[in-house]
């Protein structure tokens, strides 16, 4: 099998940029995203949710605007009737129960961490990222520069799922604006 080529390949830059006295933001692209969508129906949503939770090794089902992580992956409730599975492929479902879609190549995953990660993200997203409003596990569909982006607060920081074609353009903007905090490109 040939290697995958990321949308950011060769353009990410590296090292520390911006404020020489600080590294408030760390930008990273976890490689080889595995992202599958599972979309259920009104009468099957509960059963599908439970089977997905079992698949990823979690005890509960991710509710609206939330996520649940398990030993094998994470499930993000990105729409009322849709989940995204991160890190694990979708199982087979009868179409009467759910339909699935491999979206692994459709998004570029960017992980934003560091002490100023939330402050940095407010430079781009009109989201209330204060702890009480957006605790770990939260998921939001948002937009920056008119591009729809899904935001997930995982254990590693804030993860952005950016439409692949726009990702380099947004990445360039991120690196530039993160310089005010001091940014490390990992």
């Amino acid at each position, binding site marked *: 099998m040939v*290697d995958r080529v990321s949308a950011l390949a060769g353009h990410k830059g590296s090292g520390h940029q*911006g404020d020489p006295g600080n590294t408030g933001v760390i930008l990273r692209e976890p490689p080889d995203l595995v992202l599958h969508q599972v*979309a259920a129906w009104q009468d099957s949503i509960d059963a599908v949710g439970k089977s997905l939770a079992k698949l990823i090794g979690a005890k509960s089902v991710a509710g609206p605007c939330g996520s649940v992580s398990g030993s094998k992956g994470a499930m993000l409730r990105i729409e009322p009737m849709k989940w995204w599975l991160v890190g694990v492929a979708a199982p087979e479902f009868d179409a009467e129960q759910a339909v699935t879609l*491999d979206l692994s*190549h*459709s998004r570029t995953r960017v992980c934003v961490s560091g002490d100023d990660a939330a402050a940095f993200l407010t430079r781009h997203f009109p989201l209330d990222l204060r702890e009480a409003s957006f605790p770990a596990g939260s998921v939001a569909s948002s937009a920056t520069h008119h591009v729809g982006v899904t935001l997930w607060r995982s254990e590693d920081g804030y993860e952005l799922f950016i439409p692949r074609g726009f990702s380099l353009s947004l990445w360039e*903007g991120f690196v530039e604006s993160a310089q005010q905090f001091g940014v490390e490109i990992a």
Partner: protein
Amino acid sequence: MSAQRLQSGGRIDRQQRIEFNWDGRSLRGYAGDSLASALLASNETVLGRSFKYHRPRGIMSAGVEESGAMVTIGRGARRDPNVKATMQELYQGLHASGQNAWPNVRYDVGAVNSLFGRFFAAGFYYKTFMGLPPFEWGSKGTGLWMKYEKIIRKAAGMGAASREPDPDVYDHAHGFCDVLVVGSGPAGLQAALTAAKAGMEVWLVEQDCLLGGDLLNLADEKTEKKRLELIAELEQAGVRMMTRTTAFGLYDNGIAGLLERVTDHLAAAPAHLPRQRFWTLRARHTIVASGAMERGMAFGNNDRPGIMNVAAGRTYLNRYAVRAGQQVVVATNNDSAYDSAADLAAAGAKVCLLDARTRIGSNMLDIAGAANISLHTGSVPLNARGLPAVNGIDVAAAAGDGWAFESRLNCDLLLVSGGWSPVVHLMSHRGVKPVWDAEQACFIAPPIEEPIHVAGSAAGIWNTDACFDSGKSVGARVVKALGGKARARAMPEVGGWANPIRPVYEVRVDGRKTKAIVDPQHDVTADDVRLAHREGFVSVEHLKRYTTLGMATDGGKVGNIIGLALMAEAIGTEIPNVGTTTFRPPYTPVAIGALKGRNVDEHFRPLRRTPMHDWNLQQGATMTMAGLWHRPWYFARSGETINEAYVRETETTRATVGLCDVTSLGKIAIQGPDATELLNRVYTNPFAKLPIGKARYGIMLRDDGMVMDDGTTWRLSETDYFMTTTTAHAAKVMVWLEELLQTRWQDLRVHVTSVSEQWAGSAVAGPKAREVLSACVEDADVMSSDNFPFMGVIETTLKGGIPCRIARISFSGELAYEAYVPSDYAPAMMDLLWPEAQKHDGCLYGLEALGAMRIEKGHVTGAELDGRVSIDDAGLGKMANPDKLFIGKAMRNRPELLREDRPRLVGIKPVDTGQTFNAGSILCASNKVSGLGEGWITAVTHSPAMGHWIGIGFIAGGHQAWEGKTLVAADPVRKGNINVEIISPHMYDPSGEKMYG
């Protein structure tokens, strides 16, 4: 004017000397100075020239309302005009210069305008539109205006912006909080603390570089101690305190626009910091503690350098340690000036106080007496004397209801207080009409239903202690509204002066002609207001537009109240009957750069790259924009022009094989048990019986019967489809399908998902296309003609294990396929396809060749499907199935859409095949080349197949109506008229033999 820097006091750091440049001369100030205070201390008197009359202007205030000391900061690309010197912090190396003057503000040739002042009165500019009498009387019109407009514009004005690109970076940011407090005077500090102590998340924004508002201008230690204690408490309570930040506007749902000046005060700004930051703050409650502004009075030459408001005199004295004059006249009509006069006297100035009131209480007399101030009651300034700066005044004394000349006084500084105007701008932004309080002679914002509250002098509360109390009261009210606990406190009464104000807006004496300025920024005089009234402009809105009162960069902060008062007097009514001015955002000017943020240059729009972007560039692609997409335009070989390249690419593709990046086509996954039903409803042609493994071309209409989009849809399984759309309409179709499913057809179990980004596609077109693909798939048998007929779809694997879906469809008119792989494998796919294509002397082709081939075939795209076209107009009426329902079916049969003479899709060729014509040309009958013509041309190309220029477009009645006739392709602003013929749009291989072959 003989200003002097004091040896002690103030908030300047005398250990830090700062050198700066004013109009080419090096001057010195201290850290903590504003540009205005440093210029004042350097005895720079004339700092500007007025808009129309080029009158000399000096410092008039110490705040954002400054209308005299407006200067240009910086040089070259960083030249920033119309900066108020009062708001510019001094820094080492600051470069400031005067504006609207030649050779400089001190000796300005333009001052000659003053001699012709009577010709430049209100409405002067508008009157010039009527022509120059007597030369343009009658029917001659205003031809000369076009000439003298340039002279007028050059003579009038303020500073000039740099014409170079802005080199600075501006940031955008979003914020959220419980309580926004605007202004950090006593009310703001106290309100913020009250809310924060109750556990609220509070943002306190202050336009100044220091917190404290008017507290910064008081000299007593007790006040300073309290200010510092409050700030310390605010820090402890976790209040976010943002200095150098202006809340410039309040908007719906608690949104405030903030402008944070990040580096404007720095001599050398770090490269990683933006110059300014534009905040969109969403607050649950907003407390407006924006203070009040001191008004002047209209009297003769009231704009002379050396005349400023009383509070400014105190600010320069106590904050900047600059005594602005030695022989000072303080003119007031209210109590607030007395303390300031006393401070100046204590600092060694000889102070004479004119109070317009004839009777004042003992408390004021005591202040004046204790400070050894010469007090004249019932007196006002009538006219300022001296040029360029004030050296004395004529004093008028109360005489009945008016004034009479009394005496002359020498002075080098005249401080004026005509009352105070609460800063109600932010409330005005919310549509609140301020209410006139005749007792306090000011407008006050009434209560509002939104969670916005006013505290302190912004609410018309004058005394400092009462302002503290109002902050507590409003803070507690907000805390309770947010569900917190706070002890309710009574709101102090409006007002607070011991002696009532005597409204004085203008001082004039019959028989003495003076020029009294109402709006200094636009040189609007008291006579201008009266002239406007005489000419019939009586409403405040008309007054504003006719005289330009309040239209300059201060937005009416200085002149509006006096202007209203003068109009009220002229009409013979009260101020509130004239109307109120609606203040609109921004409160103070906001740079365009700050509004735009980082969305400039290459990030003006997000660039959308295909997964083959780098690969295409490596092959020598010249790129072009297709919407937001960057797509290969053509692949020029050495020395080739674009025309040579696309013709070669077209010929090569038709002769052997060509590869083209088609990733930008919209792709939508349609999934679910009812997916077929959805497609059957949105497409005009039937989809119910489309077999698995086949694709079908479909047209979808809008509700109104017009064509929305076309594309092919591939059936992958019983419940799974892969729809392609045009590049231009991808998002629109996706949104349309979502809307249908979520609003009209909630019963359909279908999910639609954009997979445009998941799949990268390449067209493989030309007689050798099958050979190329056969060599790249792991199982070549799948490519055989029997296994893979026209409109067939296969899911297979390319060499290297790359999953791939291929459909045999053709946009070029050749035997052709579209092959899609998951995007990260796109370069790998091209590395397989391209060597195979090269073996057949194939080529890579771009958008230009793609366009040429589709025009030859008469295939429509977004250029044709522009929203005005019915399915019949596009020549695709047969695809509308009469036996099923689909969106747009009813409306497409409207009589208007069935008219035979509607514009129909046609091909176009030049009569002289050596000629060319442009897309956008209007098709006209040869005997009537005028108006909207008979049709239009949407796309053109050189057709290698036909050997001459061709186009497609629309013409009334279509091909049959114009067959054999010569028309004119009219292109009046570019190419002129070209004779053309109308031909069938299917110009290449009309039977489709090559495509099906």
